[in-house]
């Protein structure tokens, strides 16, 4: 798009038509002092493109002249290869609102259609980025609402923020999202579940409660209907059962059944009598059979028992003899065993005596030994005490060490004294040796001879030489001598040599003492008292009676006696077993004989009841024949009765059934009457509760609650859908904005700062930091001039985005770089010139001198006629 002319009428101070024309491609510059109307043109031009002719909001009202009138703007421009003219007139009167759009001189749209067609020409680029954002002015914030804000004179960066907001939805987007969130928050938790006590939760709870109530009432209704139906049924059944005809019918059936049953029972009694007679005769016959059989049995048993008694007697006699013999053998074995046992006891006694004698002998030997050791030890004890005493009388080694040390000190003191005194020395001539003497002794030549107090030298052949010396100080020597004397006195010694002799003696005594102590330890390792205790503990010697056998012999004799006793015990056990076995055998034989005698006695007792058993047996056989004949006759008579018998079971069943029918009818009537009363009561109660009416009401309420719940769910779905659409659009807009702006902005920035790298915040869409000369800086801390330069470059980047989309749009600047210094403004002009090579850039400014260097086409505001 390229603007070619703008005409205003009734716009602020321009009541009469004014015009700017001569717009060309590239840079167009209108430089004029303040209050000249530049911003008025700017606002009017913006309104022409972006405010609907139907609007009469504060943006439009701000254009109305103080004297009144309908603002009208006419803009000519080129776009899409055609010449366009746009006229808009805003008015408070609907009839005067107008918009017209001509293309190549032909009117192509009016009013709303003109607005819509214009929107199509200005639509944003397909790959994102701003639309209609190329208006760089001091204040107006894109599509923001709020007249006061629009009127505010803002810095340029605020304008950028507003435009980015317009693109991403801005505060209205945030408000809409917040509204959605607030609405959804009334119903849902953060995770999308129904919020407790929220609208959705309450509506759901109400529906559930009403559904439950409805179901309960329906159940009550069904129960009531069932009760009503049951009551009708009970009523019918009662009518049928309780009718007099029904009672009569049941009574008649009962009487007939009773008569039939009586007849059957009478016949049945006769049958039973016959059965009893047959049973009696059968028992009589059975008794005869049994008596005959019993008598035969007794006779046979008597014979058998007698034979058994005889046989048992012979066995008892034989076993008695065997038993006597075994008892004798047992007695003999007992005697042998006693003898052997006594021999063992004697042998054991001898062995014990031998052992005691042996122990007494050993004890006596030990006693003697201990006695001797004790005596020796006691002697050693005395010797040791004596030696210890002797040791105490001699000097101790450490005392001697001290004396030796004092003697050395004295020697050293004396030597020092001598060295400090005057001295002489002699040097003999050859053959003169020994000719000088002192106190008779030749004076040794070649060495120093101290003179402590004085000296006399005899010089052979010469005379005597007296040497006198001053008294030297010998205090140290005297002190050393006193110390030595004191020590010797304390040690009880006359001199050091005596002390050394005393120590030598002491060491000899100590050697003897150690030997004596070692000997004592050998004799009494645990001490003398232990020896004495052991000695005292030994048994006193005892006297032995008679001959004491040898221990080994006693042990051998004792073992032999034990072996003999074992053999005797074994023989005794064998004899005892044999005696027990014969005794058991005899006992069993005696028991068998007793049993046989019992059998014989019982058989004899049984036979004793019959005087003549054979005759008794014959009489019984006669009776048996008579009973069998009577039984046969009785059975034939019974068969005849059974053949004509009525069915008693059937008669009884018929009687039972007839009685049951009456009882059942009676019971049923009672039960039905009770049930009828219960039903009446229940129906009355439920009916009084108006269940059906309550159900109808509840169903209506449920329907209403379901509708309400459906509306809430629908509203939730609507707000969720709206929230998704808004969030997706905002996210996409931000992403597109960041990518597109960064791509186009970078070369422009580097015209000013060669290594500049912008950081664009994805959330706000604004440049938050910029890196220059390797240093990163927050945008907010940049100077005002730098901020506005970056913001202008952002606009130029927008223009490039549009141009790349094939929709080049004019960049219109209204005093956009007021804070930029003269040096930097040259670079900004370079950037503008670079962009204006394929874009139209329109600059309004009051800085006449600075913008003279911008070049481009100079514009001017001129008066125009209405025909424009």
């Amino acid at each position, binding site marked *: 798009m390229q603007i070619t002319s703008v005409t205003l009428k009734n716009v602020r101070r321009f009541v009469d038509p004014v015009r700017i024309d001569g717009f060309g491609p590239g840079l167009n510059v209108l430089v004029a002092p303040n209050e000249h109307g530049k911003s008025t043109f700017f606002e009017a031009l913006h309104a022409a493109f*972006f405010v*609907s002719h139907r609007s009469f909001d504060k943006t439009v009202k701000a254009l109305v002249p103080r004297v009144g009138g309908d603002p009208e703007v006419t803009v000519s421009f080129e776009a899409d290869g055609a010449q366009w003219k746009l006229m808009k007139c805003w008015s408070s009167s609907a009839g005067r609102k107008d918009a017209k759009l001509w293309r190549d001189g032909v009117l192509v749209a009016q009013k*709303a259609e003109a*607005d*819509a067609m214009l*929107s*199509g020409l*200005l*639509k*944003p680029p397909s790959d994102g980025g*701003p*639309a*209609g954002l190329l208006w760089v002015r001091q204040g107006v914030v894109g*599509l923001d*609402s709020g007249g006061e804000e629009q009127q505010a004179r803002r810095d340029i960066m605020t304008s950028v923020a507003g435009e980015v907001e*317009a*693109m*991403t*939805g*801005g505060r*209205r*987007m945030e*408000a*809409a999202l917040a509204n959605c969130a607030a609405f959804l928050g009334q119903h849902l938790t953060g995770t999308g579940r129904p919020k407790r006590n929220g609208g959705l939760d309450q509506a759901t709870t109400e529906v559930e409660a009403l559904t439950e109530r409805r179901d309960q009432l329906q159940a009550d209704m069904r129960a009531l*209907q069932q009760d*009503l139906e049951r009551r009708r049924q009970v009523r019918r059944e009662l009518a049928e059962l309780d009718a007099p005809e029904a009672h009569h019918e049941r009574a008649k059936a009962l009487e007939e059944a009773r008569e039939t049953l009586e007849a059957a029972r009478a016949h049945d009694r006769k049958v039973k009598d016959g059965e009893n007679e047959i049973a009696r005769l059968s028992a009589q016959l059975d008794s005869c059979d049994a008596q005959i059989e019993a008598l035969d049995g007794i006779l046979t048993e008597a014979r058998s028992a007698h034979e058994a008694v005889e046989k048992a007697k012979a066995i008892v006699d034989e076993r008695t003899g065997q038993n006597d013999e075994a008892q004798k053998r047992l007695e003999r074995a007992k005697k042998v065993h006693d003898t052997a046992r006594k021999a063992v006891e004697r042998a054991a006694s001898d062995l014990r005596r031998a052992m005691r004698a042996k122990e007494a002998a050993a004890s006596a030997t030990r006693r003697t030994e201990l006695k001797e050791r004790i005596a020796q030890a006691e002697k050693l004890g005395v010797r040791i005490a004596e030696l210890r005493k002797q040791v105490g009388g001699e000097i101790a080694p450490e005392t001697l060490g001290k004396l030796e040390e004092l003697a050395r000190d004295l020697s050293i003191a004396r030597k020092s004294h001598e060295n400090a005194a005057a001295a002489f020395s002699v040097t003999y001539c050859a053959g003169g040796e020994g000719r000088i003497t002192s106190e008779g002794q030749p004076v040794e030549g070649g060495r120093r001879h101290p003179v402590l107090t004085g000296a006399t030298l005899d010089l052979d052949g010469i005379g005597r030489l007296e040497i006198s010396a001053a008294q030297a100080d010998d205090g140290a020597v005297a002190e050393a001598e006193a110390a030595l004397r004191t020590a010797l006195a304390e040690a009880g010694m006359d001199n050091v040599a005596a002390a050394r002799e005393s120590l030598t003696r002491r060491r000899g005594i100590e050697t003897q003492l150690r030997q004596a102590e070692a000997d004592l330890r050998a004799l009494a390792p645990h001490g003398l008292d232990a020896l004495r205790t052991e000695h005292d503990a030994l048994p006193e010697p005892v006297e032995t009676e008679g001959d004491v056998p040898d221990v080994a012999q006693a042990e051998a004799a004792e073992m032999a006696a034990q072996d003999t006793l074992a053999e005797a015990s074994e023989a005794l056990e064998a004899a005892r077993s044999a005696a027990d076995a014969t005794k058991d055998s005899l006992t069993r034989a005696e028991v068998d004989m007793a049993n046989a005698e019992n059998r014989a006695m019982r058989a004899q007792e049984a036979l004793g009841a019959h005087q003549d058993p054979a005759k008794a047996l014959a009489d019984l056989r006669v009776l048996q024949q008579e009973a069998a004949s009577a039984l046969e006759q009785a059975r034939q008579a019974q068969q005849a009765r059974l053949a004509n018998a009525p069915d008693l079971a059937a008669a009884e069943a018929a009687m039972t059934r007839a009685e049951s029918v009456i009882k059942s009818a009676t019971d049923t009537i009672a039960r039905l009457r009770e049930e009828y009363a219960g039903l009446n009561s229940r129906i*009355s109660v*439920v*009916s*009084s*509760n*108006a*269940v*059906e*009416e309550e*159900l*109808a*009401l*509840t*169903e*209506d*309420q*449920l*329907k*209403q609650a379901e*509708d309400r719940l459906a509306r809430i769910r*629908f509203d939730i*779905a*609507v*707000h969720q*859908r*709206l929230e998704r*659409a*808004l969030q*997706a*659009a*905002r996210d*996409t*807009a*931000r992403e597109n904005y960041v990518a597109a702006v960064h791509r186009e902005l970078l070369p422009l920035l580097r015209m000013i700062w060669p290594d500049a790298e912008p950081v664009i915040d994805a959330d706000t869409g604004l440049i938050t930091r910029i890196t220059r000369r390797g240093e990163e800086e927050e945008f907010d801390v940049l100077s005002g001039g730098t901020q506005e330069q970056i913001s202008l470059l952002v606009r130029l980047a927008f223009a490039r985005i549009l141009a790349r989309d094939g929709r080049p749009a004019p960049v219109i600047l209204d005093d956009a770089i007021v804070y930029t210094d003269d040096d930097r403004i040259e670079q900004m002009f370079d950037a503008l010139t670079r962009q204006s090579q394929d874009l139209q850039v329109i600059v309004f400014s009051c800085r006449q001198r600075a913008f003279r260097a911008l070049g481009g086409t100079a514009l001017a505001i001129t008066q125009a006629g209405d025909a424009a």
Partner: protein
Amino acid sequence: MADFRFIHSSDLHLGKGFGSMPEDLRGRLIEARFEVIGRLAQAARDHGASHVLIAGDLFDTTGPSAQVRRQAATAMSAASDVIWWIIPGNHDSLQGEELWAAFEDECSTNVRLLRSPEPVEMSQGVFLLPAPLPRQFPGTDLTAWMAGAETPEGALRIGLAHGGVVSFGEDFDGSALIPPDRARTARLDYLALGDWHGQLTIGERTCYSGTPERDRFKHGGRGQCLAVTIDGPGAMPQITPVQTGRFDWRAPELMLSPGMDLGAELDRLLPSDRAARRDVLVQLRAAGYLRMTERAAFEDAVRRAAPDFALFDLRDDELATEYEADDLDLIAAGGALRTAAEELRAEAQGSEVSAEDRRVAQAALNRLWSLVREG
């Protein structure tokens, strides 16, 4: 004989709870149903009649509360100059044994419950042939017996029945349809029918009176009864509707399209007397389509008008919103808001998603417009 006058009514549905209505309106509607007893009695007096025929469904259920039943019995008994002739209908059939037993106990002799299908002499020379419903779905034409029913020569024969002549919907028992010519075949001078809540004339001698107090939007206007005059046997009955209802139920339909004067259209449908609107229930069904701004204006107009009425229920499920580019300009000329709006419009007007999703998208777009408009 002199002419015979009576009031024909039916379907009072006493005890109906109106649970689907707002709480504050529910009580008024219930009260209006009860008051109609007095208005029927007054209609009888106004018409010079001493008989009121209730052709079924005096009660809404067979189990109304004791309060409803007792107060109805009391009100009818109190109108002692009127004899009430009542048959049970499908809602309050004779299966409601407790209801009718108690009701009869509570009524005076001027209230006559007709339990059996046999002629009853209402007045000298005037016989009533009732067809009470023994149960909710009788499964047979209960008026069939009337054709064979004998009445004295020269007597008036008036039938009283409850049920459909044509099928009125799923609640009706098709096997129990009353033949439209029953009045002729049964030699009836008039057949008073109930069950249909609107007033309906089946023939010269056969009418549904409709409910005297409306209870739904299906039958518009206020409830009525019929004042009937029969000059004598064979004479054509003179039937006059008498308004008895208090509440006016209206369910107008409004077909909308862009450019209409919405305020005028709405005014045309609604009663001009604002004071009378308090007793008017409106269920307005709006269909067609509107531009986004028009729809908002329409909804505003409805919101303004609604508080005048006892109930104003706007049903706009079938009202679509049409969005033009400049409509979306009102939301945003560009940017993310515009993108979101266009996405919602595409979904609302597209065919890729379900009808419900389209409806949601349309409502979301309207909501967005409202949010933007409210700022």
